[in-house]
């Protein structure tokens, strides 16, 4: 009997699928508890102002209002990163964007709650709003926090890039801009809080990161974490937008404590735009030195991030704009400088691809231009600079498996890229790009030596398997991945696994559904737990049969001898044997990523136990008279390591392509008079079913040695190459360079009629970056 896989690698129906198609899945706003009150939040009407006074007396007097809170009721600051504890649940002294929370009410219904908000009198002294990167770094800018609007500035160098540039045979520099955009999950964030007579607080919340919410609640509410239970409800879409700690979560909790009644706060769609934490607007400059035959000798990269009003994940986002250049290209010398500034806009944070779609756009359009200058086709240029498997990049990132070349071949062959792009009629074009992404961040958000993912298994006498894990399914299928891995190891069926997830009272820690980490990290923890508990079963069965433990195999709900499969016991009998021998059959598994950070300050962002790779070809059909760009067809290949469930991986890839096309062509957050110009689903343009292209998805399996069954990430990486591939295709179609995302028809038409045949930023602002931290380069890059 072979050790072939029974569940892993098969497109099985995920365990939560039928609840979802039946409307039985309980999202946070679906919860209704007896005596529940409704909370609403008053938000700042000013982008930048000092709070003079917040008078809540009239609101308190309104019949049906049970509590009103202001900043002084929740004075402790918090933030997702320990280095950025700059947020307040309700602003006390200053407001920093239109939508910044100021006060909150709990009332018997939402009509009364809304009326109460109108009765709160808030007085402000308005300050000059800072609405752009340039304004933020201007010498006379009013500081949004502290004394400067520079939130974070970094400067790193790996080897002498200036010398390498001087020696380069070909040097090119480009400046591009990527406008901000947002996640737009269809589910609006919601939280329900209950404070029991036993003094315990329970919060149900549509969060990707219940563990971090748990910690923040403990801090801000000054309650021991043992008295707080956070239950993440299934997320109706996350994409990074529910991975921070939000005002409404803290406010609902405090309102429940004050009123001793359950309180629900569901954000309106407009408020979801203010909650944001989405894609940073980033202005970038990329300069590359190459040999004549197209081998990269050095790169210098600069990014300017418009961070919005608070820190959020911004420090990490800043580093991410420079981290993955060298995992996609073999770059011998690399300099990276970045600055994130505060502006009076909703805070930016992580959206699918966290901090890397913007530099990916810069890099891939840049190399399209470089290839043309060198007389190489853009595919050949990539092939000459491929990263190697089992290597260290110049910035010390460890690459294990790498299927980039296979990905490139798939899409280039599938699309006929090399031949077809030369022979397309005007208005039609093909574009190509590549990318890489992490399978989970190698470091936790707060410093600790504990595992990033933990899984507990408990087997029952009838052969059922209880699986407990802190991970939350946000639609990506993490419930399935956990169940499939455990079922595979134990040789049981998917339906034998009972999942309990994301409940801080019951489930061991998982850091959250962000950073493309759940399959990899929780998957490894699940595998470890399952192997441990299988060992207990094998020992009990080996004693009973008797036989050697190594002779046993778990398969088809039986534990049998490998070479005499007729000899064995049922899985349930095996559990009974083990339980009789040692009591409750249970095991835990944990995953701690290897310590991979390089020997320099700032090396904590970027390392991952494994990287995924992607390549895309995009076809565009442009209307030459209007500048409208449509995408009829996309070819996308993704190095997934191993597809634990191919249909779910395809879903992640297709969803990534979709989101990328939205960002490339229409999605943007813009501001006017200090306000979000259009915080609505109608005016923030999200592509419809009619715009869905034909997609050819190729999964490349490289069986990574670090991943569970060889798996790597799928949820974010495939978004990355699509955006620059669109831009490159527009160039192929019309001969114009739109160096600014999104590529809207007015920009295309402008570029077509402009002599430069380009729309995009001319330069980056003057800014004095900190002195370069000159890091050593890994051994393999010395002398190169």
């Amino acid at each position, binding site marked *: 009997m072979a050790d072939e896989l029974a569940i892993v690698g098969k*497109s099985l*129906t*995920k365990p*939560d*699928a*039928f*609840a*979802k*198609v*039946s*409307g*039985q*899945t*309980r*999202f946070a*706003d*679906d919860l*209704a508890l007896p005596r529940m009150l409704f909370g609403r939040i008053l938000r700042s009407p000013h982008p930048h102002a000092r709070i003079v006074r917040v008078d809540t007396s009239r609101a308190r007097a309104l019949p049906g209002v049970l509590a009103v809170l202001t900043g002084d009721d929740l004075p402790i600051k918090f933030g997702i990163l320990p280095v950025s504890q700059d947020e307040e649940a309700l602003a006390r002294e200053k407001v920093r964007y239109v939508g910044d929370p100021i006060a909150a009410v709990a009332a018997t219904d939402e009509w009364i709650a809304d009326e109460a908000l109108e009765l709160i009198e808030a007085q402000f002294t308005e300050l000059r709003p800072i609405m752009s990167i340039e304004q933020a770094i201007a010498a006379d800018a009013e500081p949004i926090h502290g004394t400067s609007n520079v939130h974070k500035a970094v400067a790193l160098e790996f080897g002498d890039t200036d010398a390498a540039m001087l020696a380069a045979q070909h040097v090119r520099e480009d400046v591009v801009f990527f406008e901000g955009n947002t*996640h*737009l*999950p*269809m*589910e*609006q964030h919601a939280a329900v809080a209950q404070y029991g007579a036993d003094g315990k607080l329970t919060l149900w919340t549509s969060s990707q990161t219940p563990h971090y919410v748990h910690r923040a609640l403990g801090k801000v509410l000054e309650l021991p974490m043992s008295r707080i239970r956070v239950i993440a409800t*299934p*997320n*109706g*879409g*996350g*994409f990074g937008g529910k991975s921070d700690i939000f005002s409404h979560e803290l406010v609902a909790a405090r309102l429940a404590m004050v009123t001793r009644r359950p309180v629900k706060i569901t954000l*309106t*769609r407009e408020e979801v735009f203010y909650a944001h934490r989405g894609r940073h607007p980033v202005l970038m400059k990329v300069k590359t030195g190459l040999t004549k035959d197209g081998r990269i000798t050095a790169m210098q990269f600069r990014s300017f991030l418009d961070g919005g009003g608070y820190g959020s994940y911004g420090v990490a986002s800043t580093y991410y704009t420079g981290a993955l250049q060298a995992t996609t290209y073999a770059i011998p010398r690399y300099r990276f400088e970045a600055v994130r500034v505060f502006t009076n806009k909703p805070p930016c944070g992580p959206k699918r691809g966290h901090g890397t779609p913007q530099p990916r756009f810069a890099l891939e359009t840049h190399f399209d231009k470089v290839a043309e200058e060198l007389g190489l086709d853009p595919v050949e240029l990539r092939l000459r600079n491929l990263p190697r498997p089992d290597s260290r990049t110049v910035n010390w990132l460890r690459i294990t498996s790498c299927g980039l070349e296979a990905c490139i071949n798939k899409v280039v062959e599938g699309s006929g890229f090399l031949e077809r792009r030369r022979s397309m009629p005007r208005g039609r074009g093909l574009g190509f790009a590549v990318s890489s992404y992490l399978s989970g961040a190698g470091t936790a958000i707060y410093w600790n030596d504990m595992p990033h993912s933990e899984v507990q298994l408990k087997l029952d006498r009838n052969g059922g398997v209880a699986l407990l894990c802190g991970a939350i399914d*946000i*639609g*990506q*299928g993490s419930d399935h991945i956990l169940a499939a891995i455990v079922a595979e190891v134990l040789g049981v069926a998917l339906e034998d696994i009972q999942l309990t997830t994301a409940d801080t009272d019951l489930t061991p820690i998982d850091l959250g559904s962000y950073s493309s980490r759940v399959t990899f990290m929780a998957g490894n923890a699940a595998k470890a737990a399952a192997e441990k508990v299988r060992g207990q079963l094998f020992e009990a069965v080996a004693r009973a049969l008797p036989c050697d433990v190594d002779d046993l195999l778990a398969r088809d709900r039986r534990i049998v001898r490998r070479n005499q499969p007729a000899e064995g016991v049922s899985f349930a009998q095996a559990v009974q044997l083990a339980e009789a021998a040692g009591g409750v059959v249970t095991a835990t598994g944990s995953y701690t990523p290897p310590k991979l950070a390089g020997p320099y300050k700032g090396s904590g962002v970027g390392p991952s136990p494994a990287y995924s790779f992607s390549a895309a070809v995009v076809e565009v059909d442009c209307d030459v008279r209007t500048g409208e760009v449509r995408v009829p067809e996309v070819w996308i290949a993704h190095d997934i390591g191993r597809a634990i469930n191919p*249909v*779910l991986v*395809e*879903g992640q890839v*297709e*969803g*990534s*392509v*979709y*989101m990328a096309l939205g960002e490339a062509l229409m999605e943007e957050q813009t501001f006017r008079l200090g306000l979000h110009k259009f915080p*609505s*689903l*109608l005016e923030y343009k*999200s592509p*419809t*079913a*009619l715009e*869905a292209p034909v*997609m050819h998805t190729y999964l490349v399996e490289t069986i990574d040695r670090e991943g569970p069954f060889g798996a790597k990430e799928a949820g974010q990486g495939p978004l990355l190459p699509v955006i620059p591939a669109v831009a490159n295709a527009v160039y192929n179609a019309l001969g114009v360079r739109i160096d600014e995302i999104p590529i809207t028809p007015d920009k295309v038409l402008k570029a077509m009629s402009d002599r430069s045949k380009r729309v995009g930023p001319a330069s980056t602002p003057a800014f004095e970056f900190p002195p370069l931290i000159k890091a050593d380069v890994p051994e393999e890059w010395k002398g190169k």
Partner: protein
Amino acid sequence: MPIADRVAVRLRVNGEEVAVMVPPYKTLLEVLREDLGLTGTKHGCELGECSTCGVLVDGRPYLSCLAMPLDLEGREITTVEGMADGSEPDPLQVAFAELGAAQCGYCTPAMLLTARALLDHDPHPTRDAIKEALSGVLCRCTGYLKIFEAVELAASRGRRHG
């Protein structure tokens, strides 16, 4: 004239006659979710800009966030809870589950009902007809492809009971 506090509304939902006393300014969405406990109907904007709240009225896709219950007396309202026939799920529900067409599952009820209306009028729709029919329901997870494929799979399997 004083604003009526509550009025009696009789609705026929998923084949059942129900009567509720509700403020007349509550939309169908609010009545379904808050007064009838039918939380399978979701909402994403409450302004008709996403169709996440979609239900069927006399077999046609409607926006429950904009529909006024008093005007729907005597009409047949179907929500996702009414799609299955007892223990037998609608072929669309099965196909959506099998093909991973429900990722987060939030637009899924509206997507399923809209697809049901399509298949009831056009049992073997072309891909273009599917795209057109579903063009009013926004999905942020799937890129729509698995959804199209699931509708095609369900169509190929035909309506339950032949």
